């Protein structure tokens, strides 16, 4: 409610002392945290809108969910679980590496970050392999809107991961040159949050893309489609 309280102040009165209220000080870390929140908001809105259109599009007669009937690829979602575990490992490794930087343990930090990068790349490769697998089964991007959504959503999710990797490599190399482990903590914290967020996004995508038709229909009905 502090925002409402802020909106209620009367700036034309002079009874309040200046300062102390808003100026947060020279805090680049806080600025970066706020920026990250907005980035997550943008990414969240992006995927949210994709999912809403997915639910809307699912109510058209040509839509065939990717799970349900025994021959559908995600009726048995083992491969998706496998990929999920890779991204989960990446998230855990990031957290571990972050713990290492906080405690000043260079070895843990390096191992954690390297493992995170490895598992993230493995996840992306595994997703691409899943694409090939689907294509070999005849599930092309144009053959059904559910397929289209699968390819598009996984591709955009992977692009966000690749973007994260680029940022991460930039941070790591900067620290490498500075040779100050402690300056890695704050940016790595932001990267770790980003990784966890993308893992969360993936779980939502996983759930929705591997849903059976009745689940999708129920969700679409809840949204008014």
């Amino acid at each position, binding site marked *: 409610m502090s925002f409402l309280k*802020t*909106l*209620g*102040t*009367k*700036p*034309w*009165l*002079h*009874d309040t002392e*200046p*300062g102390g*209220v*808003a*100026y*947060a000080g*020279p*805090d*680049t870390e*806080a*600025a970066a945290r*706020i*920026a990250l929140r*907005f*980035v997550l*908001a*943008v990414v969240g*809105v*992006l995927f949210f*809108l*994709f999912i809403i*259109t997915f639910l*809307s*599009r699912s109510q*058209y*007669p*040509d839509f065939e969910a990717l799970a349900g009937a025994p021959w559908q690829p995600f009726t048995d979602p083992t491969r998706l679980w496998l990929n999920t575990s890779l991204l989960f490992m990446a998230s855990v490794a990031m957290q571990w590496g972050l713990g290492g930087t906080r405690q000043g343990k260079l070895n843990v930090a390096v191992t954690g970050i390297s493992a995170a990068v490895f598992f993230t790349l493995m996840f992306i490769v595994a997703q691409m392999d899943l694409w090939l697998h689907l294509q070999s089964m005849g599930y092309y*991007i*144009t053959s*059904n*809107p559910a397929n*289209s959504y699968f390819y*598009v959503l996984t591709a*955009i999710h992977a692009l966000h991961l690749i973007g994260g990797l680029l940022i991460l490599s930039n941070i790591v190399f900067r620290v490498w040159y500075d040779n100050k482990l402690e300056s890695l903590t704050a940016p790595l914290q932001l990267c770790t949050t980003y990784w966890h967020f993308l893992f969360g996004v993936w779980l939502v995508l996983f759930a929705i893309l591997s849903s059976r038709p009745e689940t999708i229909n129920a969700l679409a009905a809840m949204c008014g489609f």
Partner: protein
Amino acid sequence: MQHVAIADQPDELHDPESFIAKYVWSQDHKVIAIQYGGTAIFVGLIALVLSGLMRLQLGFPDTFDFIDPSAYLQFVTMHGMIMVIYLLTALLLGGFGNYLIPLMVGARDMVFPFMNMLSYWVYLLSVIILLASFFVPGGPTGAGWTLYPPQAILEGTPGYDWGILLMLISLAVFIVAFTMGGLNYVTTVLQARCRGMTLMRMPLTIWGIFTATVLGILAFPALLVSAIMMILDKTLGTSFFMPVLVSLGESLEYTGGSPILFQHLFWFFGHPEVYIVALPAFGMVSDVLSVHARKNIFGYRMMVWAIVAIGGLSFIVWAHHMYVSGMHPAFGFFFATTTLIIAVPTAIKVYNWVLTLWRGNIHLTVPMLFAIGFIFTFTHGGLTGLFLGNVTIDLPLSDTYFVVAHFHMVMGVSPIMVLFAAIYHWFPLMSGKMFNETLGKWHFWCTFLGTYAIYLPMHYLGFLGVPRRYFAMGTTDFIPDSAQTLNAQITVAALLVGLSQLIFLYNILWSLRYGEKSEKNPWGAASLEWQTPDQPPRHGNWGPELPEVHRWAYDYSVPGVKEDFIPQDHPVTDEERTDGEGGHA
């Protein structure tokens, strides 16, 4: 006492020395603002010429051989998209947002200067991609600025091949640029304000820009999603938006998508976009009115609340653009109601502007003329919005010139009036020179009166039922011949208004070179941007010490004070404190 701000590292205080670092790859928010502004005005002029070509065809059909139906539709489309996105959004947020935010909140620069620079260059890339579509086979897209599928990507629509692709890619690139800039604007406002600059002491300009940026950050993804899906429909043959259809006698392979889905996505972006343009304009006009009326803005808190309320409501009105697309009557009722509700905070703002003028010491300077002009054009455009927001009145008026007149008054002319007010108002700060007052007044009267000569009759054409986007009327019994006379008159007025913008360009360019040196803070403004040690402000804005703010930005005509304004960084005197209300409630 010296405060170290974000982006206030000692090395950043050194002015960049080489020409390239100073003016090309600059990370200074003021240079980036000018780059944004220059590029936006350049593409805006292209869009202005396109509108002139459009009007030539409408006013004098069968006269100009080089304007065929395809070219006409391409002019319409490119004019609309350039004006809304690449001129207004870019100039208001990229231009004025960049210039004013750090100066008005007392920061040395944006918090992420490198990303800020990147934002401009990516924006320039999006402009280049957009303009490239004039030179590809088939030319730019002629799908209308709303780019509705299926026709936008079907054979028969101009630019259905390369043009539409370049348009969609350009939009996607623009969104990336906007997001990078937008992150800077919101973070700088939230984190880099100087000591004493509480949120409620910020000038309304900053509130407008801040809220508009938040809207943009949340609304542009909708455009991005629709652009991605349409690119895939076009290139790979997916069926997100494309229904089963037969085009030019040929069955296409689309399996049954939903064009309405695109409309929802587009307007979920499109309506907030109106406020992305309007809110910064609301903020800037409030400040210009207050300064030139020598009076504090009436109802400051109400103005802030209205900006925030409009921002929130703007996300739940989008389907009022889609009444004729077919929707459940209950939805129509819902969206009509929210549309009328959003008129309430908007009306509050208009009342407050008028009440700011009431008993003010009005100086009819050029910026003030444009600001008062804005109150007129915005009120007229806003009132016709009430007509169109109602389903039953919208249905017969939809896709007529009434709609064209409405949105041009409310989000074409009005923000541009504010942009001119803002350019004239802040020109002395940005350049250190004064513009020519007489030429500025000529520019105002030609633009203001010319605008009415264009758009008032256009409302009447709409009532007659003249449809928009038509290359030629053909044989239509219900439209009297006199409508053509009116169209010719509108065209003459439009060309004159277009030409009168040359006065503005000449004035600005001439004044930059030969203009008189402006005295410091020539309008006697209280807000922080005018209190910099140098005018125009140097790199780092504030010299060795950051300012400290002690009051709001509207202390004008304070009783018992020698000057008729007190700058924001002047400490509060004991008399003021004991006075409680500061003598000016």
